[in-house]
């Protein structure tokens, strides 16, 4: 039996990692995710794990690379500017096919930006982020409980595909306190062996962790192999939630914290007789194209709401393929949209945009 405990999002994500056998964490301080490494620094020694504060995010992600290559279940976390610094490492991890979990508790940008919640790293997260033709699965929780569940799953997805996996929360998810339960308890000795790991070539041929292919044909071969994985992810890993879309004339699309706000707006709209449904992508890559495509066949319009000036809306438009209008509404820089603003906009658009 598991019990519910009240926890801050950042700490709950850390505990979730430990509960599925993550024993290595490398990080660097940045707001609004500081509680996560601090929690790890306290908890990991209790379970014979290693927490290390690196000299930079660049070093942290390369420590993750080494630890993942050595076969460890490993995690790092940061926030937007720090995630930008990690991009070279993430590209190497993808190219060398190394599993790990990277948490981005996003804040507003560009540059130093601010420290309030934002969703303006959507492009970076869903388009690989670093150089080269690669993707990472991106899991976007809307509650602390979901952050826990998705973090646990992230490790398995990483191992299944030998690919880094991103958990994309925003400052709100990281800072919020909610009751959570941990539904799994896995220790490292229960994890499947990683035969490809560089842990000493005893009684076998040496293993090599590497992303270099100087011959164009060989590099193309590696890329085609990676693409096969991304195709497989698109088939097997898409996650989303829908709410009242069956009879909906208007569809709202939002992820993470914004999805909760949109839910309040949708409830208010239903009260005044507007048939509003919600599609909430949980995986941002792979993106839930099909459900949006289907909804776009009947909907009068789709309204995408984000804490950015319009990033996910591009994927929504690609999915809707012009079958219905796709509008965008967003606040940015750490400003959180209000349900009333969304309702007003819905009414305005339903009335022909006046």
């Amino acid at each position, binding site marked *: 039996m598991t019990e519910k405990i009240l926890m801050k999002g950042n700490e709950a994500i850390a505990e979730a990692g430990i509960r599925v056998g993550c024993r*290595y964490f*490398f990080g660097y301080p940045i707001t609004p995710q500081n509680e996560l490494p601090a929690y790890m620094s306290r908890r990991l020694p209790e379970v014979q794990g*290693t927490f*290390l504060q*690196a*000299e*930079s995010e*660049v*070093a*942290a992600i*390369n*420590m*993750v*690379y*080494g*630890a*993942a*290559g*050595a*076969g*460890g279940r*490993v995690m790092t976390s940061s926030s937007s500017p720090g995630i930008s610094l990690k991009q*070279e*490492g993430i590209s*190497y991890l993808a190219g*060398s096919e190394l599993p790990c979990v990277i948490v981005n508790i996003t804040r507003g940008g560009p540059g130093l930006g601010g420290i309030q919640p934002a969703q303006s790293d959507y492009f970076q997260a869903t388009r690989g982020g670093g150089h080269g033709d690669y993707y990472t699965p991106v899991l976007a929780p809307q509650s602390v409980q979901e952050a826990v569940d998705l973090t646990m799953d992230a490790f398995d997805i990483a191992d299944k595909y030998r690919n880094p996996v991103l958990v994309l929360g925003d400052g709100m998810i990281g800072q919020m306190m909610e009751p959570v339960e941990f539904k799994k308890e896995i220790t490292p000795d229960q994890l499947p062996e990683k035969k490809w790991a*560089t*842990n*000493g*070539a*005893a*009684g076998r041929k*040496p*293993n*090599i*962790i*590497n*992303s*270099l292919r100087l011959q164009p044909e060989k590099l193309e071969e590696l890329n085609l192999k990676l693409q096969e994985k991304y195709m497989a992810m698109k088939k097997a890993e898409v996650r989303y939630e829908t709410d009242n879309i069956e009879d909906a004339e208007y569809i709202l699309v939002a992820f993470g914290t914004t999805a909760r706000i949109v839910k309040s707006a949708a409830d208010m709209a239903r009260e005044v007789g507007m048939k509003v449904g919600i599609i909430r992508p949980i995986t941002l890559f792979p993106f839930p194209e099909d459900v949006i495509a289907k909804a776009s066949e009947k909907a009068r319009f789709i309204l995408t709401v984000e804490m950015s000036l319009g990033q996910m809306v591009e994927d929504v438009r690609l999915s809707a393929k012009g079958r219905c209008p796709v509008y965008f509404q967003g606040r940015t820089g750490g400003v959180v949209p209000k349900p009333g603003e969304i309702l007003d906009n819905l009414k305005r658009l339903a009335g022909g945009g006046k």
Partner: protein
Amino acid sequence: MKLVAKRPKALAEKPMHYCPGCTHGITHRLIAEVIDEMDIQEKTIGIAPVGCAVFAYDYFNIDMQQAAHGRAPAVATGIKRVLPENFVFTYQGDGDLASIGTAEIVHAAMRGEKFTVVFINNAIYGMTGGQMAPTTMVGQKTATSPYGREAAHAGYPMRVVEMLATLPGAAYLARVGLFNNREIKKAKKALRRSFEIQEKGLGFSLVEFLSTCPTNWGMAPLDALKWVEEEMVPYYPLGVIRDIEEEGGPKK
């Protein structure tokens, strides 16, 4: 008949791509000999850099990881923290270690990470075509210092072992040359010692190899060896700069 030389087991049977007269090959061989002598082939993980030695992952019969430019000490940290009983070494050039990777090397030494660094100081960027490195000698002409390195413009060359010697976490630091057989023997001794320091868990160890790049120096191999001895050694003195055990154990 007495066998006087054979390929170390830890050295793969692959032709190396290094230019004629380049000392990268000698250093590879020394590493493989030390691995053989200590019988740690099945326990050692090496890290190849970005630089001429990037293919090092193909040249050793051991597990290898390839690291991003300059990040080998961070990668080694990750490996060693997961596998504290194994031997871990990085192999890094001077562009890799002393320029783009200075933060990583300094902090690995500061933390006293228990791995060994093989540092190749050839006073130039080899792979990218002979640009100026932090270790390039004053007056030395390179692709990006065509009039010779000027101290007023580009500063003085970086002495890595002396710099790291300010950090108590560095347990073993030595600089060696490869310009004659006597020095090669000393180099091997230092390398062996650095692996023993690692085995004993005493802290960070690094051996700087004064090396040649005949191709980008525009010199014949023998002239390049002479240049190391005559031009580099006076600025980069040889010897063991730190041996924590001989100095009576870790400092407070």
